């Protein structure tokens, strides 16, 4: 007797993960960003859990999903047992991804300001072009004081939000097909939609990893995804607008201004 796929024998875990994420958010006490000595709290523990469960889940889902064959790309793992093993790994990643995403979603519903600070402003497109141009060295531009997230990050957030929503909706349809008899037409739409959203997510993921982990200037923020803190120096340099929102007053700036006035 062949072993069952986890998608069949443990389907309930796929339904449990989202509600567990919502429950965990309800029981979580969040901590708002604040200046602590020479550090600034950028991500509290909940944000770190949200980020890594969603991120690691996404990474494993992308690897296993692509290995199983995406859209017009053939399966890389051939057939039979390797396919079933890859599906079981995909299943484990689905559970982690759903928990992380619903934990984030519920946390966001509890404090909509965390959602709003991710939304682009009217300058988003122009700033995004300039931001990446600056990073890649072919544009020169002095940005106005940046908030917690750059406009370019806010644009990427919209892509991730859209791709994640489509992946979850169509993915749940695909999982439901293991439990109930769904119309073939629905699956004929859900499967390619899932695959196209996967390609969008891959584009976002690669860009995110490059600009948030590979590029040296992003390393201080990468460290904060483990420790929660960025240095005050970094925040002053990159996110002055955010520090102002946190009520921080730069005494060095003030004393410099006083010195300038007296000199004048």
């Amino acid at each position, binding site marked *: 007797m*062949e072993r069952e796929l986890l998608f069949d024998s443990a389907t*309930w875990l796929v339904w*449990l993960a989202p509600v567990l994420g919502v429950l965990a958010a309800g029981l979580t006490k969040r901590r708002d960003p604040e200046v602590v000595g020479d550090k600034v709290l950028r991500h509290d523990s909940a944000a770190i859990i949200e980020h890594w469960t969603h991120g690691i889940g996404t990474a494993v889902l992308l690897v296993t999903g692509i290995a199983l064959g995406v859209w017009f790309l053939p399966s890389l793992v051939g057939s039979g047992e390797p396919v*079933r093993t890859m599906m079981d790994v995909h299943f484990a990643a689905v559970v982690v991804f759903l928990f992380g995403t619903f934990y984030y979603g519920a946390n966001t519903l509890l404090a909509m300001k965390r959602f709003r600070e991710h939304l682009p402003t009217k300058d988003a497109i122009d700033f995004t072009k300039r931001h990446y141009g600056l990073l890649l060295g072919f544009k020169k531009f002095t940005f106005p004081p940046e908030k917690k997230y750059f406009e370019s990050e806010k644009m990427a957030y919209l892509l991730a939000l859209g791709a994640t929503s489509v992946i979850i909706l169509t993915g749940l349809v695909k999982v439901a097909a293991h439990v109930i008899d769904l119309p073939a037409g629905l699956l004929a739409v859900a499967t390619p939609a899932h695959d196209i959203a996967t390609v969008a997510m891959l584009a976002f993921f690669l860009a995110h990893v490059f600009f948030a982990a590979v590029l040296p200037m992003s390393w201080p923020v990468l460290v904060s995804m483990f420790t929660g803190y960025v240095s005050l120096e970094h925040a002053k340099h990159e996110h002055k607008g955010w520090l102002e929102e946190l009520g921080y007053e730069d005494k060095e700036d003030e004393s410099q201004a006083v010195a300038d006035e007296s000199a004048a």
Partner: protein
Amino acid sequence: MADIEKKEESSQSGYSRRQFLTGVGGIGVGAVLGGALLKSILLPEEVLAIPASEGYLLVDTRKCSGCTSCMLACALTHYGETNHSLARIQITQNPFGSFPNDINIDQCRQCPYPSCVDACPTGAMHADAKTGVRTVDEAKCIGCERCVNACPFTPSRVQWNPQEKHAQKCDLCVDTPFWDKEGGPDGVRACEAVCPMGAITFSSEIPMQTDGGYNVDLHEPIFDTLGFTGAGGVAGGH
């Protein structure tokens, strides 16, 4: 900042947004765990009830010349190309065997208790509601190939379609997009229609569930009087 959050969380019903979400999460966790527990305790094992197919392919391997016309016709009518790898009926030849055991016709038996249907996790492999023919809903196939392995016969009567990435099997020509004839139990079957040796035929009666039940004598009566090896009986099972 904290006040704003509190304000956002409060609602007119008296419950805060946090209380509401915690409640939804708690009820959800309870419902999923409770449902899983109840399912495992209360519900009986799943019973597989599948209607019988309205038709069966019967063959006489002694009449088969191994020309593979049936395979090419099968691939052509289903996929529009003459490709042995896409055929759902398979001719296998044993160069060391002697007549009548040198050629086998490996056709799907439309089993009364189909292991392939039982093994499919998504219902892609199913019995057609109208004809009972065991067939694959390609849109539902997830490519796990459990059906291919579940078929009790060798070679498996369910194949992996390497081009379109899904399982495939004989559907008695119920769905032949590249053929203008009506297929299925009430129509014609491409392999049967094209076989120049008359080695394939069709029956709407459930054959005996033995090798001999599907490998029948399709020769004219005179053949049995000619004294060839293998005359008067049918070839070995497959």
